[in-house]
């Protein structure tokens, strides 16, 4: 696996303890906007895209798509206006890294956006922030204004003839608006119902124009890559998954919080080394490694390096790096109920399998948890989840199916106990 841990393992969050870093002055004091200056004045867009490709940076929004490659999809030699979208909808349960990147490092994000805009030739970025993130939105709005006043944004950025504008857009509260085409619809003032693909955003994106969508964190890595080079970046993390990411640890741990660590750091080290393990001397039962859409891992598999290539071998994924730790008092049927409720609630409702399957799964799980489960329920659950997979407009239905499959894969006993005893055998934990 060869995890490389060089000197800087927290370049994104290094200065987040410093209140001044939020201001333009404070950011500049740490070398802020130098990467943007370098990119805009000394690098051709193609060169920049090559650099990001070479760095191996993968999107941090959940799907892990290679960022440089995505940028290269934007059509060349076309005079339609083109847009960038920064996806700050962060609604994946267990994920709260983008919030801190917005609140504590707004200029780092703006700098990343500016460089990306130059690379893809975008005139405008829509920064789509989930509506509930009022404080992050306030901080960002202020930073955008500051950056405009100081000539980083707006007409003739940094003395070049490149112009760029960042428009902040508040969402209305719908998880599905994190899916990039749901986001685009929402941005256009519509319901956030994902679009059929093709056409992909690079061809037909925001308001029908060529558009690149990236996650907040993805943008934040970019200035560092420009400043220190692709090789430096590839020196962090694993060969296939370079760089750091910000793991969010929640649930039954002593020190829940955010930990910026190289990709490939073992789950065990994050949970025990950084988050202090489980309180009260209890044992770990299971850990969701990458936000609620990703299948759970049992305690025995915590040795897994937190990178997509290794997590896939365990039938799960890195997702957004939101790690949820559950101790041995946790009823996995209840966990299933909570997960199923969320996906039923948040399905946009277009696709048959997703609209009907999420509700059916929730009802079965609730019934099992109440002690009214019947023989055959688990088979139906698995069958419904299989029917939801890979057959819908967007990946939401997969995201709804996988975690339930994961629970049944690793904790089937919990379910069978409910069926056998006609009640929930766990007394502690959370009631529904």
């Amino acid at each position: 696996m060869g995890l490389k841990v060089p000197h800087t393992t927290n370049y994104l969050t290094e200065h987040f303890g410093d209140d001044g870093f939020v201001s333009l002055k404070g950011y500049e004091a740490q070398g802020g906007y130098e990467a943007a200056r370098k990119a805009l004045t000394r690098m051709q867009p193609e060169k920049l895209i090559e650099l990001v490709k070479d760095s191996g940076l993968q999107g941090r929004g959940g799907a892990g798509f290679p960022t440089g490659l995505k940028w290269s999809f934007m059509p060349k030699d076309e005079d339609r206006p083109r847009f960038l979208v920064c996806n700050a909808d962060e609604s994946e349960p267990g994920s709260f890294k983008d919030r801190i990147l917005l609140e504590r490092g707004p200029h780092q994000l703006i700098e990343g956006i500016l460089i990306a805009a130059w690379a893809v030739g975008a005139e405008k970025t829509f920064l789509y922030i989930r509506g509930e993130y009022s404080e992050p939105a306030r901080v960002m709005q202020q930073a955008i204004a500051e950056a405009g006043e100081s000539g980083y944004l707006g007409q003739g950025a940094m003395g070049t003839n490149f112009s760029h504008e960042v428009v902040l857009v508040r969402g209305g509260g719908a998880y599905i608006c994190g899916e990039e085409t749901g986001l685009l619809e929402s941005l256009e003032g519509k319901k956030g119902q994902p679009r059929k693909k093709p056409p992909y955003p690079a061809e037909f994106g925001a308001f029908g124009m060529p558009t690149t969508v990236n996650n907040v964190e993805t943008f934040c890595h970019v200035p560092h890559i420009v400043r220190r080079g692709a090789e430096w970046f590839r020196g962090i993390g694993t060969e296939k998954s370079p760089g750091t990411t910000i793991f969010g640890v929640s649930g039954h741990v002593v020190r829940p919080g955010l930990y910026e660590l190289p990709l490939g750091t073992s789950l065990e080290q994050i949970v025990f080394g950084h988050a202090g393990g489980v309180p009260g001397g209890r044992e770990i039962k299971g850990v969701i490694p990458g936000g609620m859409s990703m299948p759970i891992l049992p305690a025995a598999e915590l040795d897994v390096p937190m990178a997509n290539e290794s997590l896939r071998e365990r039938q799960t994924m890195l997702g957004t790096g939101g790690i949820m730790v559950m101790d041995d008092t946790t009823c996995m049927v209840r966990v299933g109920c909570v997960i199923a409720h969320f996906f039923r609630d948040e399905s946009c409702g277009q696709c048959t399998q997703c609209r009907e399957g999420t509700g059916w799964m929730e009802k079965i799980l609730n019934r099992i948890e109440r002690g009214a489960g019947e023989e055959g329920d688990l088979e139906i659950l698995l069958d419904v989840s299989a029917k939801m997979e890979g057959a819908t407009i967007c990946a939401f239905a997969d995201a709804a199916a996988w975690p339930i499959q994961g629970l049944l894969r690793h904790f089937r006993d919990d379910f069978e106990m409910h069926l056998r005893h006609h009640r929930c055998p766990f007394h502690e934990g959370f009631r529904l």
Partner: protein
Amino acid sequence: MVKAVKPKKAAKSGAISGATRKRIAEEMQKFPQKRGALLEALHLVQEELGCIAPETARELAEIFEMRAVEVMEVVSFYNMFHAAPQGRHHVHVCTNLPCSLRGGRSLLRRLEEHLGIRAGETTPDGRITLGREECLGACAYAPMLRIGDTYHENLGVELAKKLLDSLE
């Protein structure tokens, strides 16, 4: 004392003020098509009037040169917009998995008992609408709740009750 954030008293009930109209017009400038400003407009109008009632949807439809029914469908899609009046304070308790693992659900239940209403309901005096909400990005600081725009994290039950009692 925590101040009421919404709804503000509208000068004329149901009518979007000139100031809000002006802000909506400014927002429209930022988008290639003015409809892009619709979500922001819904936020602004709801902050002013408390909800997006059908007559308000009709007004917005005129401003945006779209059909009122399309405004209605957008309002109905998003969690944050309401077609009917809500309590003066909207208290949202996160009950998603990370918060539940740390007591989010029991917090909600205790607050239901405390206020004598169920999640989704409004106190008879119109003071508080209690809601359960999906993940708010505060997973490490659970349990938590949101009152209007403000997050209150790492909340014990007693603290949370005090917080609610302090709402006007």
